[in-house]
Protein backbone atom coordinates (compact mmCIF):
# COMPACT_ATOMS: atom_id res chain seq x y z
CA UNK A 1 0.00 0.00 0.00
CA UNK A 2 1.38 3.35 -0.95
CA UNK A 3 -1.59 5.36 0.15
CA UNK A 4 -0.83 7.32 3.28
CA UNK A 5 -3.67 9.04 5.06
CA UNK A 6 -3.46 12.43 6.59
CA UNK A 7 -3.88 10.87 10.00
CA UNK A 8 -0.81 8.75 9.47
CA UNK A 9 1.23 11.81 8.52
CA UNK A 10 0.02 13.65 11.55
CA UNK A 11 0.68 10.65 13.78
CA UNK A 12 4.21 10.38 12.49
CA UNK A 13 5.02 14.06 12.57
CA UNK A 14 3.69 14.97 15.96
CA UNK A 15 6.10 12.97 18.12
CA UNK A 16 9.00 14.13 16.00
CA UNK A 17 7.99 17.70 16.45
CA UNK A 18 7.63 17.22 20.16
CA UNK A 19 11.07 15.63 20.30
CA UNK A 20 12.60 18.65 18.60
CA UNK A 21 10.75 20.91 20.93
CA UNK A 22 11.93 19.06 24.04
CA UNK A 23 15.42 19.13 22.68
CA UNK A 24 15.41 22.86 21.99
CA UNK A 25 13.83 23.51 25.39
CA UNK A 26 16.65 21.57 27.01
CA UNK A 27 19.25 23.58 25.13
CA UNK A 28 17.55 26.79 26.21
CA UNK A 29 17.42 25.70 29.85
CA UNK A 30 21.07 24.75 29.80
CA UNK A 31 21.93 28.06 28.24
CA UNK A 32 19.95 29.95 30.87
CA UNK A 33 21.80 28.10 33.61
CA UNK A 34 25.13 29.13 32.08
CA UNK A 35 23.95 32.69 31.63
CA UNK A 36 22.84 33.12 35.21
CA UNK A 37 26.05 31.53 36.45
CA UNK A 38 27.93 34.09 34.35
CA UNK A 39 25.84 36.86 35.87
CA UNK A 40 25.96 35.78 39.49
CA UNK A 41 29.24 33.97 40.11
CA UNK A 42 31.39 37.12 39.98
CA UNK A 43 29.00 38.85 42.36
CA UNK A 44 29.15 35.90 44.74
CA UNK A 45 32.93 35.99 44.69
CA UNK A 46 32.76 39.67 45.50
CA UNK A 47 30.42 39.10 48.43
CA UNK A 48 32.42 36.16 49.78
CA UNK A 49 35.72 38.03 49.62
CA UNK A 50 34.34 40.73 51.90
CA UNK A 51 34.51 38.23 54.75
CA UNK A 52 38.02 37.03 53.98
CA UNK A 53 40.75 38.26 56.31
CA UNK A 54 43.11 38.39 53.34
CA UNK A 55 43.82 42.08 52.58
CA UNK A 56 43.75 41.21 48.88
CA UNK A 57 40.16 40.42 47.98
CA UNK A 58 40.17 36.76 47.17
CA UNK A 59 38.15 33.62 47.58
CA UNK A 60 40.86 31.19 46.56
CA UNK A 61 43.37 32.33 49.18
CA UNK A 62 41.18 32.09 52.29
CA UNK A 63 42.80 33.48 55.43
CA UNK A 64 39.88 33.16 57.78
CA UNK A 65 36.46 34.67 58.30
CA UNK A 66 36.41 38.26 59.47
CA UNK A 67 34.15 41.27 59.81
CA UNK A 68 37.02 43.70 60.20
CA UNK A 69 36.51 45.24 56.76
CA UNK A 70 32.95 46.06 57.76
CA UNK A 71 34.26 47.80 60.86
CA UNK A 72 36.89 49.65 58.88
CA UNK A 73 34.41 51.14 56.41
CA UNK A 74 32.69 53.70 58.66
CA UNK A 75 36.13 54.84 59.86
CA UNK A 76 37.22 55.66 56.33
CA UNK A 77 36.69 59.41 56.15
CA UNK A 78 36.77 59.64 52.37
CA UNK A 79 34.18 56.96 51.88
CA UNK A 80 31.91 58.50 54.48
CA UNK A 81 32.38 61.95 53.00
CA UNK A 82 31.83 60.51 49.54
CA UNK A 83 28.56 58.99 50.68
CA UNK A 84 27.46 62.37 52.04
CA UNK A 85 28.40 63.98 48.73
CA UNK A 86 26.45 61.30 46.86
CA UNK A 87 23.39 61.92 49.00
CA UNK A 88 23.65 65.69 48.54
CA UNK A 89 23.94 65.31 44.77
CA UNK A 90 21.06 62.83 44.68
CA UNK A 91 18.91 65.26 46.65
CA UNK A 92 19.75 68.03 44.22
CA UNK A 93 19.07 65.78 41.24
CA UNK A 94 15.61 64.90 42.56
CA UNK A 95 14.78 68.53 43.21
CA UNK A 96 15.81 69.49 39.67
CA UNK A 97 14.65 66.44 37.69
CA UNK A 98 11.13 65.97 39.01
CA UNK A 99 9.80 69.47 38.16
CA UNK A 100 11.60 69.54 34.82
CA UNK A 101 10.49 66.05 33.83
CA UNK A 102 6.95 66.81 34.95
CA UNK A 103 6.79 70.08 33.01
CA UNK A 104 8.14 68.42 29.87
CA UNK A 105 5.71 65.52 30.14
CA UNK A 106 2.72 67.80 30.72
CA UNK A 107 3.61 69.87 27.70
CA UNK A 108 4.34 66.93 25.41
CA UNK A 109 1.12 65.07 26.24
CA UNK A 110 -0.99 68.07 25.33
CA UNK A 111 0.99 69.77 22.61
CA UNK A 112 -0.87 69.13 19.37
CA UNK A 113 1.59 70.29 16.78
CA UNK A 114 4.37 69.05 14.62
CA UNK A 115 6.84 70.69 16.98
CA UNK A 116 6.04 68.04 19.55
CA UNK A 117 8.22 65.36 17.93
CA UNK A 118 11.12 67.78 17.72
CA UNK A 119 10.62 68.80 21.33
CA UNK A 120 10.42 65.15 22.33
CA UNK A 121 13.65 64.38 20.50
CA UNK A 122 15.47 67.22 22.22
CA UNK A 123 14.16 66.26 25.65
CA UNK A 124 15.09 62.58 25.42
CA UNK A 125 18.42 63.20 23.68
CA UNK A 126 20.39 63.23 26.95
CA UNK A 127 19.42 59.59 27.51
CA UNK A 128 21.03 58.72 24.20
CA UNK A 129 24.16 60.78 24.82
CA UNK A 130 27.25 59.12 26.28
CA UNK A 131 27.66 59.98 29.95
CA UNK A 132 31.13 61.41 29.55
CA UNK A 133 29.89 63.83 26.91
CA UNK A 134 27.16 65.03 29.27
CA UNK A 135 29.71 65.45 32.03
CA UNK A 136 32.18 67.28 29.80
CA UNK A 137 29.63 69.65 28.27
CA UNK A 138 28.23 70.53 31.67
CA UNK A 139 31.69 71.16 33.05
CA UNK A 140 32.65 73.36 30.10
CA UNK A 141 29.39 75.30 29.95
CA UNK A 142 29.06 76.19 33.60
CA UNK A 143 32.63 77.32 33.82
CA UNK A 144 32.61 79.31 30.61
CA UNK A 145 29.19 80.85 31.12
CA UNK A 146 29.04 81.40 34.87
CA UNK A 147 32.58 80.85 36.09
CA UNK A 148 31.34 77.87 38.06
CA UNK A 149 34.14 75.41 38.72
CA UNK A 150 33.41 71.71 38.48
CA UNK A 151 32.18 70.27 41.76
CA UNK A 152 29.13 68.86 43.48
CA UNK A 153 26.87 71.41 41.81
CA UNK A 154 27.96 70.67 38.25
CA UNK A 155 27.83 66.94 39.01
CA UNK A 156 24.20 67.29 40.09
CA UNK A 157 23.38 69.38 37.02
CA UNK A 158 25.05 66.93 34.65
CA UNK A 159 23.20 64.00 36.19
CA UNK A 160 19.91 65.87 36.19
CA UNK A 161 20.35 66.51 32.46
CA UNK A 162 19.58 62.88 31.67
CA UNK A 163 17.71 61.81 34.81
CA UNK A 164 15.09 64.48 34.08
CA UNK A 165 14.50 62.76 30.74
CA UNK A 166 13.85 59.46 32.49
CA UNK A 167 11.44 61.20 34.84
CA UNK A 168 9.69 62.74 31.87
CA UNK A 169 9.21 59.37 30.21
CA UNK A 170 7.73 57.98 33.42
CA UNK A 171 5.33 60.90 33.78
CA UNK A 172 4.33 60.62 30.13
CA UNK A 173 3.52 56.95 30.53
CA UNK A 174 1.31 57.77 33.46
CA UNK A 175 -0.36 60.75 31.80
CA UNK A 176 -1.25 58.64 28.80
CA UNK A 177 -3.38 56.50 31.07
CA UNK A 178 -5.19 59.50 32.48
CA UNK A 179 -8.88 59.94 31.75
CA UNK A 180 -9.19 63.39 30.18
CA UNK A 181 -12.84 63.45 31.23
CA UNK A 182 -11.76 63.85 34.86
CA UNK A 183 -10.07 67.16 34.13
CA UNK A 184 -12.96 68.29 31.99
CA UNK A 185 -15.46 67.32 34.67
CA UNK A 186 -13.54 69.34 37.24
CA UNK A 187 -13.30 72.31 34.88
CA UNK A 188 -16.99 72.03 34.10
CA UNK A 189 -17.82 72.14 37.79
CA UNK A 190 -16.24 75.56 37.96
CA UNK A 191 -12.68 74.73 38.97
CA UNK A 192 -9.87 76.96 37.73
CA UNK A 193 -6.97 75.41 35.78
CA UNK A 194 -4.72 75.71 38.79
CA UNK A 195 -7.32 74.09 41.03
CA UNK A 196 -7.76 71.22 38.54
CA UNK A 197 -4.01 70.73 38.41
CA UNK A 198 -3.64 70.75 42.19
CA UNK A 199 -6.69 68.67 43.01
CA UNK A 200 -6.92 66.24 40.07
CA UNK A 201 -3.72 66.00 38.03
CA UNK A 202 -1.13 66.14 40.80
CA UNK A 203 -2.82 63.53 43.02
CA UNK A 204 -3.10 61.30 39.97
CA UNK A 205 0.64 61.70 39.34
CA UNK A 206 1.64 61.26 42.98
CA UNK A 207 2.54 57.54 42.79
CA UNK A 208 4.69 58.21 39.71
CA UNK A 209 6.26 61.14 41.50
CA UNK A 210 7.45 58.80 44.26
CA UNK A 211 8.69 56.17 41.82
CA UNK A 212 10.48 58.80 39.77
CA UNK A 213 12.12 60.22 42.89
CA UNK A 214 13.30 56.78 43.92
CA UNK A 215 14.67 55.95 40.48
CA UNK A 216 16.34 59.36 40.22
CA UNK A 217 17.93 58.77 43.59
CA UNK A 218 19.29 55.36 42.59
CA UNK A 219 20.50 56.57 39.19
CA UNK A 220 22.25 59.49 40.80
CA UNK A 221 23.93 57.43 43.51
CA UNK A 222 25.12 54.83 41.00
CA UNK A 223 26.30 57.16 38.30
CA UNK A 224 29.98 57.10 37.45
CA UNK A 225 30.71 58.21 33.89
CA UNK A 226 28.96 61.56 33.99
CA UNK A 227 29.93 62.35 37.55
CA UNK A 228 33.55 61.48 36.91
CA UNK A 229 33.80 64.27 34.34
CA UNK A 230 31.66 66.84 36.06
CA UNK A 231 32.70 66.63 39.67
CA UNK A 232 36.16 68.18 39.48
CA UNK A 233 38.24 67.77 42.60
CA UNK A 234 35.36 66.60 44.75
CA UNK A 235 34.18 63.02 44.87
CA UNK A 236 31.20 60.77 45.49
CA UNK A 237 31.09 57.31 46.94
CA UNK A 238 31.18 55.80 43.48
CA UNK A 239 33.97 57.94 42.01
CA UNK A 240 35.95 57.21 45.17
CA UNK A 241 35.45 53.50 44.60
CA UNK A 242 36.69 54.00 41.07
CA UNK A 243 39.73 55.94 42.24
CA UNK A 244 40.64 53.26 44.77
CA UNK A 245 40.18 50.47 42.29
CA UNK A 246 42.79 51.90 40.00
CA UNK A 247 45.31 51.42 42.75
CA UNK A 248 44.39 47.87 43.34
CA UNK A 249 41.69 46.02 45.12
CA UNK A 250 40.61 46.52 48.68
CA UNK A 251 38.20 44.40 50.71
CA UNK A 252 36.53 47.67 51.74
CA UNK A 253 35.13 47.84 48.22
CA UNK A 254 33.83 44.32 48.68
CA UNK A 255 32.08 45.51 51.81
CA UNK A 256 30.42 48.32 49.87
CA UNK A 257 29.59 45.70 47.27
CA UNK A 258 27.91 43.53 49.91
CA UNK A 259 25.84 46.51 51.07
CA UNK A 260 24.80 47.33 47.51
CA UNK A 261 23.97 43.69 46.79
CA UNK A 262 21.81 43.41 49.91
CA UNK A 263 19.95 46.62 49.14
CA UNK A 264 19.47 45.58 45.52
CA UNK A 265 18.28 42.06 46.33
CA UNK A 266 15.82 43.30 48.92
CA UNK A 267 14.36 46.06 46.77
CA UNK A 268 14.28 43.93 43.61
CA UNK A 269 12.43 41.21 45.50
CA UNK A 270 9.92 43.71 46.84
CA UNK A 271 9.46 45.13 43.36
CA UNK A 272 8.95 41.75 41.71
CA UNK A 273 6.51 40.66 44.41
CA UNK A 274 4.58 43.94 44.18
CA UNK A 275 4.47 43.58 40.40
CA UNK A 276 3.15 40.04 40.67
CA UNK A 277 0.48 41.03 43.13
CA UNK A 278 -0.44 44.01 40.97
CA UNK A 279 -0.53 41.76 37.90
CA UNK A 280 -2.80 39.23 39.57
CA UNK A 281 -5.06 41.76 41.25
Amino acid at each position, binding site marked *: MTVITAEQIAAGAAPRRRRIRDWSDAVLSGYLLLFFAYMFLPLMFMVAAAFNANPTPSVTDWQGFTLKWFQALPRDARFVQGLLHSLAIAGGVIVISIPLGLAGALILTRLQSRASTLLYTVLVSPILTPGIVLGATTMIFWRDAFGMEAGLFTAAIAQAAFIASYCMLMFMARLQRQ*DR*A*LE*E*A*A*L*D*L*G*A*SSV*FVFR*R*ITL*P*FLMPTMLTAALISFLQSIENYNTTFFAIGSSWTLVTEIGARMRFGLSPMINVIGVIFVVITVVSATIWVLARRRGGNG
Partner: protein
Amino acid sequence: MHGQDVVLDGVSMRFGDFTAVQPTDLTINAGEFFSILGPSGCGKTTILRMISGFLDPSAGDVRIGGTSMAGIRPNARPTALIFQNLALFPLMSVWENVAFGLEARGVPKKVRRQRAEELLAMVALTGQGEKKPTELSGGQRQRVAIARALAVEPAVLLLDEPLSALDLKLRQHMRSELKDLQRKTGVTFIYITHDQGEALTMSDRVAVMNRGVVEQVASSDEIYNQPGTPFVASFVGEQNVFRGKLSGLDGEIARVDTPQGEMLARLRGRAGVGDEVMIFVRPERVGLGGTGTDDAPRNRLRATIERRDLEGPFVNLHCRAGDAPVTVHLPNSGDTASSLASGETDLAFRPSDAIVMPVGDLARE
Protein backbone atom coordinates in the same frame (compact mmCIF):
# COMPACT_ATOMS: atom_id res chain seq x y z
CA MET B 1 -32.38 76.45 40.93
CA HIS B 2 -33.85 77.97 37.82
CA GLY B 3 -33.45 76.75 34.33
CA GLN B 4 -32.31 79.05 31.57
CA ASP B 5 -32.88 78.86 27.87
CA VAL B 6 -30.18 77.86 25.43
CA VAL B 7 -30.05 79.30 21.93
CA LEU B 8 -27.83 78.06 19.13
CA ASP B 9 -27.62 80.80 16.55
CA GLY B 10 -26.15 79.57 13.28
CA VAL B 11 -23.71 77.39 15.15
CA SER B 12 -21.44 75.10 13.13
CA MET B 13 -18.32 73.10 13.82
CA ARG B 14 -15.60 72.02 11.44
CA PHE B 15 -12.59 69.84 12.19
CA GLY B 16 -10.26 70.40 9.27
CA ASP B 17 -12.17 69.29 6.18
CA PHE B 18 -14.80 67.47 8.16
CA THR B 19 -17.94 69.34 9.14
CA ALA B 20 -19.24 67.78 12.33
CA VAL B 21 -22.16 70.17 12.73
CA GLN B 22 -23.75 72.06 9.86
CA PRO B 23 -24.99 75.59 10.64
CA THR B 24 -27.76 75.03 13.15
CA ASP B 25 -30.41 77.18 14.77
CA LEU B 26 -31.96 75.68 17.85
CA THR B 27 -33.84 77.09 20.81
CA ILE B 28 -34.14 75.09 24.01
CA ASN B 29 -36.61 76.60 26.45
CA ALA B 30 -35.88 77.27 30.08
CA GLY B 31 -36.86 74.36 32.32
CA GLU B 32 -37.38 71.99 29.42
CA PHE B 33 -36.30 68.36 29.17
CA PHE B 34 -34.77 68.40 25.72
CA SER B 35 -33.21 65.41 24.01
CA ILE B 36 -30.90 65.26 21.05
CA LEU B 37 -31.29 61.89 19.40
CA GLY B 38 -29.13 60.48 16.66
CA PRO B 39 -26.78 57.70 15.63
CA SER B 40 -23.17 57.84 16.78
CA GLY B 41 -21.12 60.36 14.85
CA CYS B 42 -24.13 62.53 14.00
CA GLY B 43 -22.69 65.56 15.81
CA LYS B 44 -24.84 65.48 18.94
CA THR B 45 -21.89 65.24 21.33
CA THR B 46 -20.19 68.08 19.45
CA ILE B 47 -23.21 70.28 20.08
CA LEU B 48 -23.13 69.33 23.75
CA ARG B 49 -19.45 70.19 24.02
CA MET B 50 -20.02 73.53 22.35
CA ILE B 51 -22.73 74.36 24.87
CA SER B 52 -20.53 73.29 27.79
CA GLY B 53 -17.59 75.23 26.39
CA PHE B 54 -15.08 72.47 25.66
CA LEU B 55 -15.32 73.31 21.98
CA ASP B 56 -15.55 76.71 20.38
CA PRO B 57 -17.96 76.81 17.43
CA SER B 58 -16.35 77.48 14.06
CA ALA B 59 -19.16 79.92 13.39
CA GLY B 60 -22.27 81.17 15.14
CA ASP B 61 -23.05 81.90 18.71
CA VAL B 62 -24.24 79.98 21.74
CA ARG B 63 -26.40 81.98 24.16
CA ILE B 64 -27.48 80.82 27.57
CA GLY B 65 -30.13 82.90 29.36
CA GLY B 66 -29.65 85.53 26.69
CA THR B 67 -25.90 85.89 27.33
CA SER B 68 -23.44 85.04 24.60
CA MET B 69 -20.99 82.35 25.69
CA ALA B 70 -18.28 83.35 23.23
CA GLY B 71 -14.93 83.37 25.01
CA ILE B 72 -16.37 82.05 28.26
CA ARG B 73 -14.53 78.97 29.51
CA PRO B 74 -16.36 75.85 30.72
CA ASN B 75 -15.70 76.70 34.36
CA ALA B 76 -17.49 80.03 34.03
CA ARG B 77 -20.63 78.81 32.25
CA PRO B 78 -23.91 78.12 34.06
CA THR B 79 -23.84 74.57 32.77
CA ALA B 80 -22.93 71.25 34.32
CA LEU B 81 -22.08 68.20 32.28
CA ILE B 82 -22.67 64.58 33.18
CA PHE B 83 -20.15 62.52 31.29
CA GLN B 84 -20.83 59.30 29.53
CA ASN B 85 -18.37 57.48 31.80
CA LEU B 86 -19.48 59.74 34.69
CA ALA B 87 -15.85 60.85 35.34
CA LEU B 88 -16.15 60.57 39.10
CA PHE B 89 -12.88 61.46 40.80
CA PRO B 90 -11.52 58.08 41.88
CA LEU B 91 -9.23 59.38 44.59
CA MET B 92 -11.95 61.36 46.40
CA SER B 93 -14.76 60.07 48.57
CA VAL B 94 -18.35 60.31 47.40
CA TRP B 95 -19.10 63.45 49.38
CA GLU B 96 -15.91 65.13 48.22
CA ASN B 97 -16.97 64.37 44.67
CA VAL B 98 -20.36 65.94 45.25
CA ALA B 99 -18.84 68.95 46.97
CA PHE B 100 -16.06 69.44 44.42
CA GLY B 101 -17.74 72.33 42.65
CA LEU B 102 -18.27 74.08 45.98
CA GLU B 103 -14.66 73.46 46.98
CA ALA B 104 -13.55 75.06 43.73
CA ARG B 105 -15.64 78.10 44.67
CA GLY B 106 -13.97 78.33 48.06
CA VAL B 107 -16.98 77.31 50.14
CA PRO B 108 -15.89 76.37 53.68
CA LYS B 109 -15.61 72.70 54.42
CA LYS B 110 -18.45 72.54 56.94
CA VAL B 111 -20.90 74.10 54.53
CA ARG B 112 -19.68 71.87 51.73
CA ARG B 113 -20.14 68.80 53.81
CA GLN B 114 -23.66 69.75 54.76
CA ARG B 115 -24.67 70.63 51.22
CA ALA B 116 -23.22 67.34 49.97
CA GLU B 117 -25.32 65.42 52.49
CA GLU B 118 -28.45 67.24 51.34
CA LEU B 119 -27.77 66.43 47.72
CA LEU B 120 -26.94 62.82 48.52
CA ALA B 121 -30.24 62.60 50.37
CA MET B 122 -31.99 63.97 47.32
CA VAL B 123 -30.59 61.19 45.15
CA ALA B 124 -31.27 58.57 47.86
CA LEU B 125 -27.65 58.02 48.85
CA THR B 126 -27.83 59.07 52.49
CA GLY B 127 -24.91 57.72 54.51
CA GLN B 128 -22.77 56.73 51.51
CA GLY B 129 -20.69 59.91 51.63
CA GLU B 130 -17.52 58.38 53.07
CA LYS B 131 -17.26 55.62 50.47
CA LYS B 132 -15.07 55.76 47.40
CA PRO B 133 -16.94 55.88 44.06
CA THR B 134 -15.58 52.43 43.15
CA GLU B 135 -17.38 50.92 46.14
CA LEU B 136 -20.78 51.91 44.75
CA SER B 137 -22.99 50.11 42.25
CA GLY B 138 -23.51 51.45 38.73
CA GLY B 139 -26.81 53.09 39.56
CA GLN B 140 -25.42 54.66 42.71
CA ARG B 141 -22.46 56.09 40.82
CA GLN B 142 -24.91 57.52 38.34
CA ARG B 143 -26.69 59.33 41.15
CA VAL B 144 -23.42 60.63 42.57
CA ALA B 145 -22.61 62.14 39.20
CA ILE B 146 -26.01 63.82 39.12
CA ALA B 147 -25.67 65.11 42.66
CA ARG B 148 -22.20 66.43 41.86
CA ALA B 149 -23.52 68.30 38.85
CA LEU B 150 -26.51 69.72 40.73
CA ALA B 151 -24.30 70.89 43.58
CA VAL B 152 -23.09 73.83 41.53
CA GLU B 153 -26.74 74.84 40.89
CA PRO B 154 -26.47 74.93 37.14
CA ALA B 155 -29.11 76.56 34.99
CA VAL B 156 -28.56 73.93 32.34
CA LEU B 157 -27.68 70.29 32.95
CA LEU B 158 -26.05 68.52 30.02
CA LEU B 159 -26.20 64.73 29.99
CA ASP B 160 -24.04 62.78 27.56
CA GLU B 161 -25.59 59.31 27.26
CA PRO B 162 -25.28 58.86 31.01
CA LEU B 163 -27.33 55.67 31.14
CA SER B 164 -25.52 53.77 28.43
CA ALA B 165 -23.31 51.87 30.88
CA LEU B 166 -26.24 50.56 32.93
CA ASP B 167 -28.19 47.37 32.41
CA LEU B 168 -31.68 47.48 30.96
CA LYS B 169 -33.68 47.31 34.20
CA LEU B 170 -31.65 50.02 35.86
CA ARG B 171 -31.80 52.14 32.75
CA GLN B 172 -35.58 52.09 32.73
CA HIS B 173 -35.67 52.90 36.40
CA MET B 174 -33.24 55.79 36.03
CA ARG B 175 -35.35 57.28 33.24
CA SER B 176 -38.19 58.01 35.58
CA GLU B 177 -35.79 59.21 38.25
CA LEU B 178 -34.18 61.67 35.87
CA LYS B 179 -37.56 62.94 34.73
CA ASP B 180 -38.68 63.41 38.34
CA LEU B 181 -35.48 65.19 39.20
CA GLN B 182 -35.86 67.53 36.26
CA ARG B 183 -39.38 68.43 37.33
CA LYS B 184 -38.32 68.89 40.93
CA THR B 185 -35.39 71.16 40.15
CA GLY B 186 -36.71 73.06 37.17
CA VAL B 187 -33.28 72.97 35.58
CA THR B 188 -33.05 72.81 31.80
CA PHE B 189 -31.94 69.30 30.86
CA ILE B 190 -30.24 68.67 27.55
CA TYR B 191 -30.01 64.96 27.09
CA ILE B 192 -27.87 63.31 24.43
CA THR B 193 -28.69 59.78 23.40
CA HIS B 194 -28.81 57.32 20.55
CA ASP B 195 -31.52 55.37 22.38
CA GLN B 196 -34.90 56.48 21.05
CA GLY B 197 -36.70 54.86 23.97
CA GLU B 198 -34.88 57.17 26.38
CA ALA B 199 -35.50 60.21 24.23
CA LEU B 200 -39.18 59.54 23.66
CA THR B 201 -40.13 58.63 27.23
CA MET B 202 -38.38 61.46 29.08
CA SER B 203 -38.37 64.44 26.80
CA ASP B 204 -40.64 67.40 26.40
CA ARG B 205 -39.10 67.89 22.97
CA VAL B 206 -36.69 65.88 20.87
CA ALA B 207 -34.25 66.95 18.19
CA VAL B 208 -33.30 64.20 15.76
CA MET B 209 -29.86 64.65 14.22
CA ASN B 210 -28.13 63.01 11.31
CA ARG B 211 -24.81 63.86 9.66
CA GLY B 212 -24.43 67.12 11.46
CA VAL B 213 -27.93 68.30 10.57
CA VAL B 214 -30.90 68.67 12.91
CA GLU B 215 -33.61 66.95 10.86
CA GLN B 216 -36.60 67.59 13.08
CA VAL B 217 -37.39 69.22 16.41
CA ALA B 218 -40.73 68.25 17.88
CA SER B 219 -42.54 66.56 20.77
CA SER B 220 -42.10 62.84 21.19
CA ASP B 221 -45.58 62.18 19.79
CA GLU B 222 -44.95 64.22 16.72
CA ILE B 223 -41.55 62.68 16.10
CA TYR B 224 -43.08 59.24 16.23
CA ASN B 225 -46.33 59.87 14.44
CA GLN B 226 -45.44 62.69 12.10
CA PRO B 227 -41.79 62.15 11.15
CA GLY B 228 -40.62 65.07 9.09
CA THR B 229 -37.98 63.36 7.01
CA PRO B 230 -37.28 59.85 5.73
CA PHE B 231 -34.37 59.64 8.17
CA VAL B 232 -36.52 60.47 11.17
CA ALA B 233 -39.15 58.05 9.95
CA SER B 234 -36.70 55.20 9.63
CA PHE B 235 -34.49 55.99 12.64
CA VAL B 236 -37.24 56.42 15.22
CA GLY B 237 -39.22 53.27 15.83
CA GLU B 238 -39.76 50.44 13.37
CA GLN B 239 -41.13 51.01 9.91
CA ASN B 240 -42.29 48.94 7.00
CA VAL B 241 -41.04 50.51 3.80
CA PHE B 242 -42.43 50.16 0.31
CA ARG B 243 -40.69 51.82 -2.59
CA GLY B 244 -42.59 53.02 -5.64
CA LYS B 245 -43.46 55.81 -8.06
CA LEU B 246 -45.90 58.60 -7.35
CA SER B 247 -48.72 58.16 -9.81
CA GLY B 248 -51.26 60.71 -8.59
CA LEU B 249 -52.09 63.29 -5.95
CA ASP B 250 -55.48 63.96 -4.35
CA GLY B 251 -55.02 66.79 -1.85
CA GLU B 252 -52.91 65.33 0.95
CA ILE B 253 -53.38 61.75 -0.22
CA ALA B 254 -50.93 60.40 -2.76
CA ARG B 255 -51.35 57.39 -4.99
CA VAL B 256 -48.23 55.25 -5.38
CA ASP B 257 -47.48 52.37 -7.74
CA THR B 258 -45.49 49.73 -5.89
CA PRO B 259 -44.49 46.16 -6.75
CA GLN B 260 -47.07 45.20 -4.11
CA GLY B 261 -49.81 47.03 -5.95
CA GLU B 262 -51.26 50.53 -5.80
CA MET B 263 -51.23 52.15 -2.35
CA LEU B 264 -52.61 55.35 -0.87
CA ALA B 265 -50.81 57.37 1.79
CA ARG B 266 -50.42 60.88 3.18
CA LEU B 267 -47.72 62.91 1.47
CA ARG B 268 -45.12 64.70 3.58
CA GLY B 269 -42.52 66.82 1.91
CA ARG B 270 -42.48 67.81 -1.71
CA ALA B 271 -42.93 65.33 -4.53
CA GLY B 272 -44.45 65.35 -7.98
CA VAL B 273 -46.03 62.70 -10.13
CA GLY B 274 -43.39 60.31 -11.45
CA ASP B 275 -40.98 60.82 -8.52
CA GLU B 276 -39.36 57.92 -6.69
CA VAL B 277 -41.01 57.78 -3.27
CA MET B 278 -41.14 55.63 -0.15
CA ILE B 279 -44.14 54.63 1.89
CA PHE B 280 -43.62 54.22 5.64
CA VAL B 281 -46.08 52.40 7.83
CA ARG B 282 -45.56 51.30 11.46
CA PRO B 283 -45.88 47.56 12.19
CA GLU B 284 -48.57 48.19 14.79
CA ARG B 285 -50.69 50.04 12.23
CA VAL B 286 -50.83 47.05 9.91
CA GLY B 287 -53.66 44.61 10.53
CA LEU B 288 -54.74 41.25 9.21
CA GLY B 289 -56.95 41.55 6.13
CA GLY B 290 -60.32 40.59 7.57
CA THR B 291 -60.15 42.53 10.79
CA GLY B 292 -61.34 45.93 9.60
CA THR B 293 -64.76 47.00 10.86
CA ASP B 294 -65.16 50.49 9.38
CA ASP B 295 -65.52 51.34 5.69
CA ALA B 296 -62.42 53.52 5.45
CA PRO B 297 -60.39 52.77 2.34
CA ARG B 298 -57.52 50.39 2.97
CA ASN B 299 -54.34 49.36 1.27
CA ARG B 300 -54.36 45.62 0.98
CA LEU B 301 -51.57 43.25 0.16
CA ARG B 302 -50.98 39.54 0.20
CA ALA B 303 -48.02 38.25 2.22
CA THR B 304 -46.38 35.03 3.30
CA ILE B 305 -45.79 34.56 7.03
CA GLU B 306 -42.18 33.51 7.58
CA ARG B 307 -41.87 33.66 11.36
CA ARG B 308 -43.93 34.41 14.42
CA ASP B 309 -42.34 35.81 17.59
CA LEU B 310 -44.17 36.19 20.84
CA GLU B 311 -43.04 39.30 22.66
CA GLY B 312 -45.27 39.41 25.70
CA PRO B 313 -48.02 41.96 24.97
CA PHE B 314 -47.39 41.72 21.21
CA VAL B 315 -47.18 39.00 18.66
CA ASN B 316 -44.78 39.92 15.90
CA LEU B 317 -45.36 38.42 12.47
CA HIS B 318 -42.47 38.59 10.03
CA CYS B 319 -43.92 38.34 6.54
CA ARG B 320 -42.87 38.91 3.01
CA ALA B 321 -44.90 40.63 0.30
CA GLY B 322 -43.14 40.22 -3.00
CA ASP B 323 -39.59 41.41 -2.36
CA ALA B 324 -40.51 43.60 0.61
CA PRO B 325 -40.30 42.32 4.18
CA VAL B 326 -43.31 43.35 6.24
CA THR B 327 -43.52 43.21 10.02
CA VAL B 328 -46.85 43.20 11.80
CA HIS B 329 -47.30 43.81 15.53
CA LEU B 330 -50.58 42.31 16.74
CA PRO B 331 -51.85 42.81 20.27
CA ASN B 332 -51.63 39.51 22.11
CA SER B 333 -55.30 38.62 22.51
CA GLY B 334 -54.54 35.23 23.97
CA ASP B 335 -56.03 32.69 21.52
CA THR B 336 -56.19 33.57 17.84
CA ALA B 337 -52.59 34.54 17.26
CA SER B 338 -51.06 31.13 17.85
CA SER B 339 -52.60 29.73 14.70
CA LEU B 340 -50.74 32.27 12.58
CA ALA B 341 -47.41 30.51 12.39
CA SER B 342 -47.17 30.07 8.64
CA GLY B 343 -49.05 30.30 5.39
CA GLU B 344 -50.42 33.16 3.38
CA THR B 345 -52.45 35.99 4.75
CA ASP B 346 -54.01 39.29 3.76
CA LEU B 347 -52.59 42.44 5.32
CA ALA B 348 -54.16 45.89 5.35
CA PHE B 349 -53.46 49.42 6.61
CA ARG B 350 -55.23 52.75 6.46
CA PRO B 351 -53.85 55.42 4.13
CA SER B 352 -53.94 57.89 7.05
CA ASP B 353 -51.50 55.63 8.97
CA ALA B 354 -48.99 55.61 6.11
CA ILE B 355 -46.86 58.45 4.89
CA VAL B 356 -45.20 59.04 1.56
CA MET B 357 -41.89 60.84 1.30
CA PRO B 358 -39.60 61.52 -1.64
CA VAL B 359 -36.55 59.20 -1.56
CA GLY B 360 -34.34 62.30 -1.75
CA ASP B 361 -32.20 62.35 1.37
CA LEU B 362 -32.26 58.66 2.14
CA ALA B 363 -30.85 57.83 -1.29
CA ARG B 364 -27.53 59.10 0.04
CA GLU B 365 -27.40 56.43 2.72
